[in-house]
């Protein structure tokens, strides 16, 4: 019996190497849990029928001596990351029957390492949501409390790891979609520097924001996966060439805290817990400084202009002609567009496409989009400036713990506010990590997030690992 609860990548690797168990045994252990729990939790949309065959192939690497740390490691993959020959539905009706015709770059990298893809995980429809409730395949439940949401949009990936239905998972983040579900499920979630991980083969949402990254049980696992997938890729024009990555090493001493950002709208449990975390960091020898980030206050408003603008542009590719849902009852081309999109897109997707269309329309473009671009620049400048005096910035990851299923579905703004502390990192492109920081009195996970300068992921892993021990 493998103890999945405490299993890490390095522990699994040791056991696979010493022959304590095989790659097939490990994959089977997760498949057994899936069989027992997935029907209730709904973390996976599909379990791949070749998971055990992938494991057997990985085993060969141990036999012939080419195994690496990720060989045989069971991964859950978010449903928007392409794996050739597998369905990738993006959590939507629109792509329900779509089969990927090529591998995403991260898939290619992980296949080369011999990672085992267990299945594709549930997510908000087209990654638009903060609770996995907008998925066409029904909501995912939070394994820590099945009456609550797992967060989103990578909620299926987080739930899969939290319920031991995969050792680790990949998710994607446009604004908080990795960190917030990690926070709600008591896990570690990374948002890498924009340009660190290739997005080739990730179904696009907001191109100036999207990143792929791991959701794991501990910081070390996230570090190992990040170090493997953070490679320059000529197929993604926003991927940063290796020689242009000014990789910053760890050794952080000063942590800035923008206290003024949490004056209102933050759950008292969350705030108390955050204050305790800050005290712990102080006792561990870090200098804590109060910093002001006046423009970051507008981050989420800026995000809800830039993202829908990019969404409405991006989703124009879904036209009912080349792939995806197509309404064949339509009699002319215009009707094909309108009906395929009207039926194929979920409600939140329709809402955001219309909002984006409005924002980019004549007469409103300057007031919203151009203004938002300017404020985004201000936010980036102010973070860059803050990092001249502090090594890290800390905030709570989400303003509340996991909320109940069904909540906030009729109040879009209340749902959008879940990502209030996520937005500065996505808009400015700096990396950020969410790390568990304890629980509420009723056992709901809480989380602290750290931000660091561009390409200073090493600093995040260092503080994260330190924080896990204090």
């Amino acid at each position: 019996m493998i103890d999945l609860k405490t299993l890490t990548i390095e522990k699994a690797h040791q056991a696979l190497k010493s022959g304590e168990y095989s790659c097939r045994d490990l994959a089977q252990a997760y498949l057994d849990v899936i069989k027992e729990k997935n029907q209730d939790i709904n973390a996976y949309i599909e379990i791949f029928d070749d998971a055990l065959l992938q494991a057997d192939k990985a085993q060969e690497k141990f036999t012939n001596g080419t195994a690496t740390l990720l060989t045989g490691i069971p991964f859950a993959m978010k449903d928007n990351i392409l794996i050739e020959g597998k369905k990738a539905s993006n959590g939507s009706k629109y792509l329900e029957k779509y089969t990927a015709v090529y591998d995403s770059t991260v898939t290619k990298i992980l296949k080369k390492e011999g990672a085992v893809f267990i299945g594709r995980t549930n997510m908000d429809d087209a990654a638009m949501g903060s609770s996995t409730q907008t998925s066409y395949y029904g909501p995912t439940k939070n394994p820590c409390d099945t009456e609550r949401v797992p967060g989103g949009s990578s909620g299926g990936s987080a739930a899969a790891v939290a319920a031991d239905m995969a050792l680790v998972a990949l998710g994607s983040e446009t604004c908080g979609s990795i960190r917030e579900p990690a926070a709600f499920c008591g896990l570690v979630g990374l948002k890498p520097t924009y340009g660190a991980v290739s997005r080739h083969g990730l179904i696009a949402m907001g191109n100036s924001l999207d990143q792929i990254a791991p959701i794991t049980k501990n910081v070390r696992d996230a570090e190992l996966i990040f170090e493997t997938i953070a490679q320059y890729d000529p197929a993604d024009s926003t991927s940063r060439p290796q020689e242009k990555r000014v990789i910053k090493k760890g050794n952080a001493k000063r942590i800035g805290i923008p206290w003024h950002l949490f004056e209102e709208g933050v759950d008292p449990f969350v705030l108390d817990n955050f204050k305790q975390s800050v005290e712990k960091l102080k006792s561990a020898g870090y200098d804590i400084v109060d910093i002001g980030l006046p423009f970051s206050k507008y981050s989420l408003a800026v995000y809800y202009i830039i993202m829908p603008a990019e969404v409405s542009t991006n989703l124009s590719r879904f036209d009912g002609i080349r792939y995806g849902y197509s309404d064949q009852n339509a009699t002319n081309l215009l009707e094909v567009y309108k009906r395929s999109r009207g039926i194929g897109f979920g409600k939140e997707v329709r809402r955001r496409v219309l909002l984006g269309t409005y924002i980019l329309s004549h007469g409103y473009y300057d007031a919203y989009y151009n203004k938002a671009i300017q404020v985004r620049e201000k936010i980036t400048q102010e973070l860059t400036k803050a990092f001249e005096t502090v090594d890290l910035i800390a905030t709570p990851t989400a303003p509340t713990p996991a909320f109940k299923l069904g909540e906030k579905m009729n109040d879009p703004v209340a749902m959008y506010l879940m990502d209030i502390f996520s937005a500065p990192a996505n808009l400015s492109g700096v990396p950020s990590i969410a790390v568990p920081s304890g629980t509420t009195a009723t056992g709901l996970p809480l989380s602290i997030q750290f931000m660091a300068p561009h390409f200073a992921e090493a600093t995040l892993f260092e503080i994260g690992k330190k924080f896990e021990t204090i």
Partner: protein
Amino acid sequence: MTIDDVNKLATLARIDMSDAEKQEFLGNMESILKYIGQIQEVSTEVLERKVGDVYNVLREDENPTESGKYTEKILAEAPETQDGYFKVKQIL
């Protein structure tokens, strides 16, 4: 914003929506626009956008994929095809 504006947006976005949903969207827009409208408070000085180092992000145009290599796979996703092309409904 009025219901006529919503109708226009739905047409521009090429999305069929029910009247009930359009009404609901109109209601949502009030709170969303109020929230995102906050950015109007930010000082409107003209910002010079700093561009990072500029470099070519395009790969060399060499070693093209063999013509037709993926055609079958890609067309298999389309609802209607003919002679290796996507087929569309009447345009006019």
